[in-house]
């Protein structure tokens, strides 16, 4: 396989680390040296030629090729079998509604949340249970990290360069999880977005850090969602009032209450659409009285419509916990779902 990337000679593994760190090519953690053999193995597994055009980032007009994605995937620790998931995630990120430049450059400090659905989760031994949101398994960690290195090295989204985040959050290291489809009667996130259950897919969302909630003192679905709604309202009051995609992660203990009551994901969405609202005057209670103005009674919904809520079944078996994952900044970036192996711009 003829690879086109510039080649650099290094003495050994340790030298490769220092060579990459010193050039700003890493996230500070050790990398796997991207040898031609390792990169070719990723491309072979995905059945992609090196010069395959995955997409073009429109603001900087950067063409993104499969070879460059593979180099970064190897560095992040991806096995060849992980690579198609990373390609699908980057394909989704290059879709116009995602507006990739925004969340990668913004002072708001978003990371790219990646949700994996379908048979590939089991093929890659992804763990949607314990510790689902952080270092739950090899594939999730490596795929999420690969996305970050791709952004740094292909779009210069390094801190202080294109990435102008004031704070960022730990999800920038890796922010990938699988949905727990086996232990949920709900439609998967990808199925809700039109992808058949037998097809693997990824959904990407420009996301803030997860905000954990806990309610172990009720089995009433509406009361449980009161807790989620309160956390969403807190985000609207303390961070950004603008509506957009929110995601909630619902672990098994809370899911059991929804399942017992016969609530579907659509029921959760409709309920939270109504509950997750604030008034502009609420800002006066949290130090933002200066921007309330004359529209204090104006109501703001967290979701433009119920479909903007992503409901994800994941998490360990015990504990009445859940998580709210807020959007980067309102609806400027829309969550995108892409089937793995799909080409968005290919002709029939």
């Amino acid at each position, binding site marked *: 396989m003829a690879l086109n*990337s510039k080649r650099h000679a290094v003495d050994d593994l340790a030298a490769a680390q220092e060579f990459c760190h010193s050039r700003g090519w890493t996230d500070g953690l050790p990398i796997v040296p991207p040898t031609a053999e390792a990169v070719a193995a990723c491309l072979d597994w995905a059945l992609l030629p090196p010069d395959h055009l995955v997409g073009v980032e429109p603001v900087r007009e950067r063409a993104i090729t499969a070879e460059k994605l593979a180099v970064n995937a190897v560095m992040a620790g991806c096995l060849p079998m992980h690579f198609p998931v990373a390609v699908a995630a980057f394909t989704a990120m290059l879709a116009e509604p995602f507006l990739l430049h925004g969340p990668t450059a913004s002072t708001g400090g978003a990371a790219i949340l990646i949700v994996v659905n379908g048979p590939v989760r089991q093929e890659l031994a992804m763990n949607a249970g314990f510790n689902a949101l952080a270092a739950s398994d090899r594939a999730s960690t490596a795929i999420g990290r690969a996305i970050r290195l791709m952004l740094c090295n292909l779009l210069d989204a390094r801190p202080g360069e294109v990435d102008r985040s004031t704070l960022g959050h730990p999800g920038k290291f890796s922010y990938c999880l699988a949905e727990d489809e086996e232990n949920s009667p709900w439609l998967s996130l990808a199925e809700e977005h039109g992808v058949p259950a037998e097809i693997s897919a990824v959904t990407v969302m420009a996301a803030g850090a997860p905000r954990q909630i806990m309610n172990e003192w009720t089995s009433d679905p509406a009361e449980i969602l009161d807790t989620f709604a309160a956390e969403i309202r807190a985000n609207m009051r303390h961070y950004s009032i603008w509506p957009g995609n929110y995601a909630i992660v619902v672990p098994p203990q809370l899911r059991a209450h929804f399942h017992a009551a016969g609530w579907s994901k659509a029921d959760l969405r409709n309920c939270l659409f109504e509950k997750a609202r604030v008034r502009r005057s609420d800002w006066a209670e949290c130090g933002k009285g200066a921007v309330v103005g004359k529209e204090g009674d104006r109501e703001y919904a967290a979701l433009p419509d119920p479909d903007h809520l992503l409901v994800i079944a994941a998490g360990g078996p015990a504990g009445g916990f859940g998580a709210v994952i807020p959007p980067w900044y309102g609806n400027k970036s829309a969550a995108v779902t892409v089937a793995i192996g799909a080409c968005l711009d290919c002709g029939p």
Partner: protein
Amino acid sequence: MEILDPTHEGGAPAFVPAQRLATLEGTTVAILSNGKKGTKAFFDAFASELVEHHGVAEVVRLTKANYSAPAEPGLLGRAERWQALVAGVGD
């Protein structure tokens, strides 16, 4: 050991830089703001500076609808009437 370069190697999109203006005297200069609210005072002051101290005849103020996206195609439609355009990015 040989490793592959992970960075973008495609180069910048092809374009030809415009000729530098010899003077701003009597020119029309456009300022394309990215649209962040906090930039208004800065670009106001910049526009005044151009007129009062550099003899610019007219400053055209433009604002992108979305500060994270490229300028809308129609926004630069009158560009041939301007002698300079400043891409104003601020926060």
